[in-house]
C-alpha cells in the first residue's frame, strides 16, 4: 500500500495501523516522491491526501490510473469540505474525511483490496 500525505505524523499512524494488520506500506510526503514510488513499486492500493504542499495529487492520481494491468484502487483522505467531489475527480473508489476512525480506514483499505472487513 502506498500512502501519500504531507503530514508526517499522519503517515506514521497510517503506516502503524496497516503494518499491524500485515500490509506492506510505502510512504511519501510529497507528490514527486509519490510519482517515483508509483513507478518503482507498483502498489496494490494507494491512500492519497488531496492537498499536498509539493507536487499535485492530480498528477499522482493520473499516474496511478496509467499503471498497466488491473486498475489500482485509490482511497482519498482530506481535511477539506469538498471530499466527495475531489474523490470523484481523482477517480477514487472511496474517501475519508479527516479526522477519521482508524477502523474506518482499515475497512476502506480491505474493501479496496477485495478482502472482507475484519477478516484478519
Amino acid at each position, binding site marked *: 500500500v502506498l500512502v501519500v500525505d504531507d*503530514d*508526517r*505524523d*499522519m503517515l*506514521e*499512524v*497510517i503506516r*502503524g*495501523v496497516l503494518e*499491524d494488520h500485515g500490509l506492506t506500506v510505502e510512504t511519501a*510526503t*510529497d507528490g*514527486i*516522491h509519490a510519482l517515483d514510488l508509483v513507478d518503482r513499486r507498483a502498489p496494490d492500493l494507494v491512500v492519497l491526501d488531496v*492537498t*499536498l*504542499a*509539493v*507536487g*499535485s495529487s492530480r498528477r499522482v492520481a493520473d499516474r496511478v490510473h496509467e499503471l498497466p494491468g488491473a486498475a489500482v484502487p485509490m482511497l482519498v483522505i482530506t*481535511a*477539506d*469540505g469538498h471530499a466527495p467531489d475531489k474523490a470523484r475527480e481523482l477517480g477514487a473508489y472511496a474517501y475519508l474525511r*479527516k*479526522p*477519521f*476512525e*482508524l*477502523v474506518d480506514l482499515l475497512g476502506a483499505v480491505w474493501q479496496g483490496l477485495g478482502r472482507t472487513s475484519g477478516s484478519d
Partner: protein
Amino acid sequence: VIVRSFGTDAITSWSRGAEELYGWTATEALGRVTHDLLRTQFPDSKEAVDAELRSAGSWAGELVHTRRDGQLIVVASRQAVQRDAQGLPTLTLEINSDITPRKRAEESLRESEERFRLLVESIQDYAIFLLSPEARVVTWNEGAQRLKGYRPDEIIGQSFTRFYTPDDQVAGRPARLLATARAEGRVEDEGWRVRKDGSRFWANVVITALRDDQGRLRGFAKITRDLTERKQAEDARARASREEGARVAAEAAQAELRASRDQLAAILSGVAEGILVQDRHGRLVYANDTAAQLCGFPDAAALLTASIPEIVGRFEVFDESGAPLPLERLPAQRVQRGEEVAEVLIRFRVRGGSEERWSIDRATPLRDEHGEITQVISILRDVTERKWAEDTARFLDALNLELTRSLEYEETLRRVAELAVPRLADWCVVDVLDERGRLTRLAVAHVDPAKVRLAEELSARYPEDPAAASGPPRVVRTGRSELISEITDAQVVAGARDAEHLAILRSLQLRSMLIVPLHARGQVLGAISLVAAESGRRYGPRELALAEDVAVRAGLAVDNARLFRDAQQQAATHVELNAALRTAMAQLKQELQTRDDFLAAAAHDLKNPLASIKGAAQLLQLRRARPDGLDEHQLGAGLERIDAITTRATAQVDELLDLARMQMGRPLDLNRQPIDLVALAREAVIEHQQRSERHHLSLESQVPELIGRWDGRRLARVLGNLLDNALKYSPDGGTIRVEVSRDDGPPGVGVLTVEDQGVGIPEEDLGRIFERFQRGTNVVGEIAGTGIGLASARHIVETHGGSITAASRSRRGATFTVRLPLQTTDGVDTWERGA
C-alpha cells in the same frame, strides 16, 4: 417647502410654511402622497410635470391646491430634483407660494376690461375703434356703425383712409394725422369725413397712439364725433354776424360773460384743479389759490402781483421723461401761437428743494368774434398722487419679479438696490449682518458708477461705528425704521469724521434719507438705506411705508432663498450619508466574507493535527486490544508523537491568530527576548532538511552568534515560511542556501538570506508577492498555496522594524533577504547597551 421622494411622491419634509399655508401639520403630512393630500390640479397633467422634472431637473408653474379647510388656492410652484451619485433622481423639492390674491386681482382686472369693452362697443354717439400700427381697422363699435354706415364685417381689416374725402386723401391728411399721433401721442382734428353711402359729415376726431410698456407702437385708438349740426350753427352765426347785428350779439355775450365772471372766480378759487388765465400778451389775469400754491405762492393774490420773471424763476419744469421743458413748449404758450395742443403731462418742482410734482396741463383759447385769441385758460390737474400710486405699483411688480428670479439671497438684495435707483432714491445701500454679527456692506447703487466707487472708498476709510446713535447700526440694533426728511448741514457736520470727510459729504448734496430694517426668519438681517441727494426728493411717511413694504418683500425672498438652500443642503447631505453608508456596508460585507474565508481555512488547517492526534491515540488503543498487547516502546513513541503534534498545533494556532490580526490591520504584540539568529537558522535548516531528500540545505554564517531582542517564535515562523517556500518552489530539488550576517550600520542590522534554485518569480510579480492572497503568476494553478505565508512574514518582520525583499531571475531561483534591527527603535529596549 415640501420635499418628496421622487417616483412615489411621498412627503419626507414639510416646513412650517407648508403647515401654515395648507393647514396640515408635518406629522399629518409626512409619508402622504403630495398630490393626494393637496388634491393637486395640474396645468396639463401630473405626467407632464414629472416628465419635465425627469428630463430638465426642474419645473415651475401654477398649481391649484386644496387646503385642509377645503378652500382652493392657487400657488406658484417651483420644483427641483435632487440626484444621487449615479445621477438617478431621489427627491423632489417643492417651494410653493400662495398667489391666490394676485390671481383674484388679475381676474377682476380682466372683468373690468371686459366691462369696459362692452361699454365702448355699446356707445352710440361716438365712433370708437382701434387701428393696427399699419392703420387698418381692428375693432368697430355700435357708434362707428351708426355714424359711418359700415357693418363690422365690411370694414375690419380695411385701411382707415376711406373715411377721408378724395381731396384730403390726395393731400395726405390721414398719414399726417397718424404721424402726429405717433410723435406726440395724440392728435385732434376737425373736418369733413365720408360715410359708406358717400355723404359727408363734419367730424371731430381724436387719434391716440397706443404703446406697450416697452414703448412699442401697438396701434391707434380713434374717436370720431359728428359735429355737423354744430358746424352748421356756427356757419349760420358767422353769416348772421357778417350781415347784421354782429357787434350787438358779441357785446351781449361779453356783458353776460362779465356778469358771471365774479361768480365764476368764486367757484374756481375752491376748485382742486389749478386754473390760470393769461391775456393775449401772456400776462396773468386770473389764478385760483390751487394754481398759486402749485406755483409756490401762498395764495392767488400773491401770484397775481408777482412779475413774470419772478414766477418763471420760481420753479423748474420737466417733461414726462425728466428732461427740462422750455416754457415756450407749455400748452398755454403753444395755444397763444395758434397751435392745436392736447394735454401735456409735466413734472415740476419749486426751486429750493420741494419735492417733484406731476401735473396734466391743458390749455384752451378764448376767441373773439373774429376768431382772434383773447385769452388762454390753463387748467393744471395735480396727478402726483396718482402718478406715485402707478409708479409704486409698477415698481413693486418689477420687484416681485426680481425677487423670484434668484435663489441666492445676496444676489436678490443687490437687485433690490439696483431697482430702487433712481425710482425711489439717488442712493440705495444694503447692509447685512455677517455670521459674526458685524454689519457689512452688501450693495451700493447709484446711477453713476463713479459715485458707487466713491461710496465704497468712503465706507472703507470711515467704517460704520456699530454703536452709532443713528444710521444702519441703530436700525439693525433696534429693528425700527429711521426717517430724516430734511438733512441739515448741522447733521452732516455731526456725521463727518474729519474735514476731508465733511467736504466729501457736503459735495454729495444729501437731502433726505430713510433706513428700514430687513427682517428674515423673525430676526433682523440688515438694513436698506435710501438717500435722496441731487434729485431734491424729500422723504415722508408715504416713502417710509413703501420702503418698509419693499423690506418685507425682500425679507420674505431671503427667507425663501435660505429655506431652499437649506433644503438643498439637507438633501445633498442625505445623498452623501447614503453613499457613505453603502460604502461602509460593502466594506463590512467584504470584511465578514474575509472572516468567513479565514475561519474556513483555519478549521481546515486545524483538522490535520487533530486527525493525527486522533489517529495516534486510536493506534495505541488498537494495539492495546491485540492479544500481544502494547509494548512500552510503542506507548512511549505514541505519547511523544501526540505531545509533538500538540506543540506544532499550538504554534499553528498562534500563527492563525497573528494572521487574523494582520487581516484586521492590528499590530502584533511582540514577545521580545534575546535571540541568537544563527541558532534559530540552524534549527530551521535541520528541521527542513529532514523533510526532503531531493534538496540540500546549507547554512553559512560570518559570525558565531548574532543576538538581538526579537520574538523568537515568530522569527522561527518567518524562517519556516521562507524555507517551506524554497522547498515547495524548487520541485526538482537543488541547493537551498541560508546565510546569516551582520551589517554594522549604523544602525546594527542582522541580515538573513534564503536562496533557492527553483522556479523563481517573474520580475513583474516581485512588487506584490508580499501582499495578502497574491502569488507568482508562474505558480498559480501549478503549485498549491494560499498567498498568506509571505504576507505573514512581512507583517512579522515589519513589526520588528525590519524589512523583507525578494530578488529573482525567473527560472533560476529566488533570493529572500530579511533585515532586522539589532536595537529596537522604540527606546524601551536597553538590553543591547546593557550587555
